[in-house]
C-alpha cells in the first residue's frame, strides 16, 4: 500500500502542504525543526488515529489555528482498493464558544471522513492505511518506563483492530471513573455500593485489551526472534514476553478466562485498593520483557543487563518484526516511516534498514539532515523532498 497524495492543513508547522509521494523511497531532507518528522507523524495519525509522539491531540494543531486536517489518497493492492482518507482534529463546531476562543483552547474533537462519505466514527479510519514508525526514540521502548512499552503495543494493535481501539477508549473511561470512586470512598465522600459495577466495567474492557495484547505479542515475538538472529548473524536470540500485573495461567487464552483471572485478582486486592484509593491491577500496568542471549535459556533482560548497542538492536528488531507482522496480517507491506534513524545505527544496521527501504515494493519515508548520509544507490532511486520551515518542494521537480 502507498500514499499517492498527502495534504496537510494547519498541521504542526504546515499551513498548507500538498505532495504526491513516489511509490518507493521518499527522502525528506532539511535542517532540524523544519517539519520533516511532522510529515511522518501525519501519515502515522492516518494509520492509527493517534500521534506517535503528542501527549494531547491538540498539540498537532498549528499554533493560532482552531483545527488541523490531514487528507490522503491511499492506493492498495488488496481489500478496499483506493481510498481517500480525511481526519480533522479540533474541529470546534458547537464547542467553540467565545470563552474557548479567547483562551485559544482547541477542542479535542476528531472527525473522520472516508471517500467523501459522511462523517463517521474515529475507529472507522482503522484498516485503510498501515504504517510502521521507526524513530530515534525507539530506544525508549527497550530502556524506558513501562508506559513506553504499552504505548508501543497500543499503537501497533490499534492499527489492525478497531475493536482494540474501542475497548481501549472504554477501558480508559471506566478506569478513570473507578479510580475517582475509590478515592471518594477512601475520603468517605461516596458509598462503596457501586464499586462492583465499575469493577465489572474495567474487567470487561480490560480483559479484551489483555487478550489482544497477549495474542499480538505471541505473533510479534516469533518475528522478533527471527529478525534478531538475522541482524546478529545468528549470535543472539530475542524473547519477547508479556508481563501482566497479575498472574495468568498459560492456558488462560480467551477473553472470558482472562476476565475471570482479573476478577479473582481484583477481589484479592480490594482492601489494598480501598486503602490506596486507586486501581492497582489491570492492563494499565502491563509490561513487556525483552531477553537477549545466545540461546533462549540463558537469555537475560536486555533493559537491565544489555549494552546500549544491544538495546538499540532490540529496538530495531521490534520495528522490523512489526513490519513483517503487519505485512502478514494485511497481505501487503505497510508504509515505512524512518525518522532520523540512520545516524544512531552502525554501518551494518544502517545497511539492513536501507536494504529494507529499497526492496519489497514498499513505500518508505525517510528523514535526513543531509542526503550525503545516503549511499548513491539509495539517492538515485529516491524521490527527494526538501523541507524548509513548513514548505516542501521536490528536488529536481
Amino acid at each position, binding site marked *: 500500500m502507498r500514499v499517492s497524495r498527502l495534504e496537510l492543513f494547519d498541521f504542526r508547522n504546515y499551513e498548507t502542504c500538498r505532495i504526491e509521494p513516489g511509490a518507493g523511497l521518499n527522502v525528506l531532507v532539511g535542517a532540524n525543526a523544519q517539519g520533516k518528522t511532522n510529515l511522518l507523524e501525519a501519515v502515522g495519525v492516518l494509520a492509527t488515529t493517534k500521534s506517535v509522539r503528542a501527549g494531547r491531540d491538540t498539540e498537532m494543531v498549528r499554533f493560532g489555528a482552531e483545527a488541523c486536517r490531514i487528507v490522503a489518497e491511499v492506493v492498495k493492492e488488496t481489500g478496499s482498493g483506493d481510498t481517500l482518507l480525511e481526519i480533522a482534529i479540533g474541529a470546534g463546531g458547537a464547542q467553540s464558544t467565545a470563552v474557548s476562543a479567547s483562551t485559544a483552547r482547541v477542542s479535542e474533537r476528531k472527525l473522520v471522513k472516508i471517500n467523501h462519505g459522511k462523517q463517521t466514527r474515529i475507529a472507522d479510519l482503522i484498516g485503510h492505511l498501515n504504517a510502521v514508525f521507526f524513530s530515534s526514540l525507539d530506544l525508549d521502548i527497550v530502556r524506558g518506563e513501562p508506559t513506553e512499552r504499552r504505548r508501543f503495543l497500543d499503537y501497533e494493535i490499534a492499527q489492525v483492530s478497531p475493536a482494540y481501539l*474501542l475497548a481501549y477508549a472504554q477501558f480508559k473511561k*471506566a478506569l478513570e*471513573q473507578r479510580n475517582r470512586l475509590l478515592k471518594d470512598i477512601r475520603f468517605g465522600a461516596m*458509598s462503596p455500593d*457501586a464499586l462492583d459495577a465499575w469493577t465489572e466495567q474495567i474487567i470487561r474492557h480490560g480483559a479484551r485489551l489483555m487478550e489482544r495484547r497477549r495474542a499480538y505479542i505471541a505473533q510479534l515475538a516469533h518475528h522478533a526472534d527471527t529478525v534478531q538472529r538475522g541482524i546478529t548473524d545468528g549470535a543472539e536470540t530475542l524473547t519477547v514476553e508479556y508481563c501482566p500485573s497479575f498472574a495468568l495461567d498459560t492456558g488462560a487464552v480467551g477473553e472470558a478466562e482472562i476476565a475471570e483471572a482479573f476478577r479473582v485478582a481484583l477481589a484479592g486486592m480490594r482492601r489494598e485498593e480501598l486503602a490506596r484509593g486507586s486501581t492497582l491491577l489491570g492492563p494499565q500496568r502491563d509490561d513487556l520483557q525483552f531477553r537477549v542471549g545466545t540461546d533462549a535459556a540463558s537469555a537475560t533482560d536486555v533493559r537491565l543487563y544489555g549494552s546500549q548497542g544491544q538495546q538499540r538492536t532490540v529496538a530495531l528488531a521490534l520495528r522490523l518484526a512489526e513490519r513483517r507482522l503487519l505485512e502478514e496480517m494485511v497481505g501487503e507491506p505497510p508504509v515505512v516511516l524512518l525518522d532520523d534513524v540512520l545516524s544512531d545505527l552502525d554501518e551494518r544496521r544502517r545497511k539492513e534498514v536501507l536494504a529494507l527501504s529499497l526492496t519489497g515494493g514498499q513505500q518508505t519515508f525517510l528523514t535526513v539532515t543531509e542526503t550525503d548520509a545516503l549511499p548513491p544507490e539509495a539517492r538515485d532511486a529516491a524521490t527527494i523532498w526538501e523541507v524548509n520551515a513548513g514548505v516542501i518542494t521536490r528536488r529536481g521537480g
Partner: protein
Amino acid sequence: MVQYAKPLARLVGEFEKLPGIGPKSAQRLAFYVMRLSDEEAKTLGDAIAEVKAKIGYCKTCYNFTDQEECEICRDSRRSDTHICVVADPRDLIAIEKTGEFRGKYHVLGGVLAPMEGIGPDQLKLRELLARLQTIEAEEIVLAMNPSVEGDATAMYLAKLLKTLGLRVTQIAHGIPVGGDLDYADQATLIQAYDGRREM
C-alpha cells in the same frame, strides 16, 4: 470596537449559554427576538417562566409533569407490573414513541459517574426500590445508553434488583433496523457482534 447596547448583549450572552448554541447562533436568535412584536416576545418570555413555575417531577416515576403524577403513571390501561428504567426523560419519550411498551417508567435522573459526583444516592434509586415494594413487578426493563456509564448503571441495577428476586431484562444494542451491515460504523458492529445470540 462597536458593542451591542447592554440589554441586547445580555440576551446574546444568555442564548450563548444554551447547549449547542455558539456565538453566531446566539446573535441570530437575539436579532430574531428583537424583530418580534411585543406580544410575541411576551409569549416567549411567559413560556420560559411558565415551564419553570409549573413543571416538576412526577411523584411516582420522576418524569417531567405539570401534575402531581404524570399522565403515563395515571393511565390505568397501562401495566403497573412492567417497569422500564431510563436515565433521562428524553429516553422515556424515545421509547414512548415506539408505542410498543405498555408498562410504566422510572426515570433515574442520570447515570452512575463518579467523576461527576454521581453515585447511587444521587439517582432516584431509593425511590425505585420503595416503589417496587408496593407492586408485584413482573419485569424490569433496563434501557440505558450503550456507554461505559450506562452499562455500569445497568449492571448495578440488575444486581440489586435480582437480589430482590425480580426479573430484569436489558434492551439490545446494535445495528439499526433497515441499515446495511456494510454501512454500520465499526463500534456499533463490534457491539452487535458481542451481543450475538444463539439461533
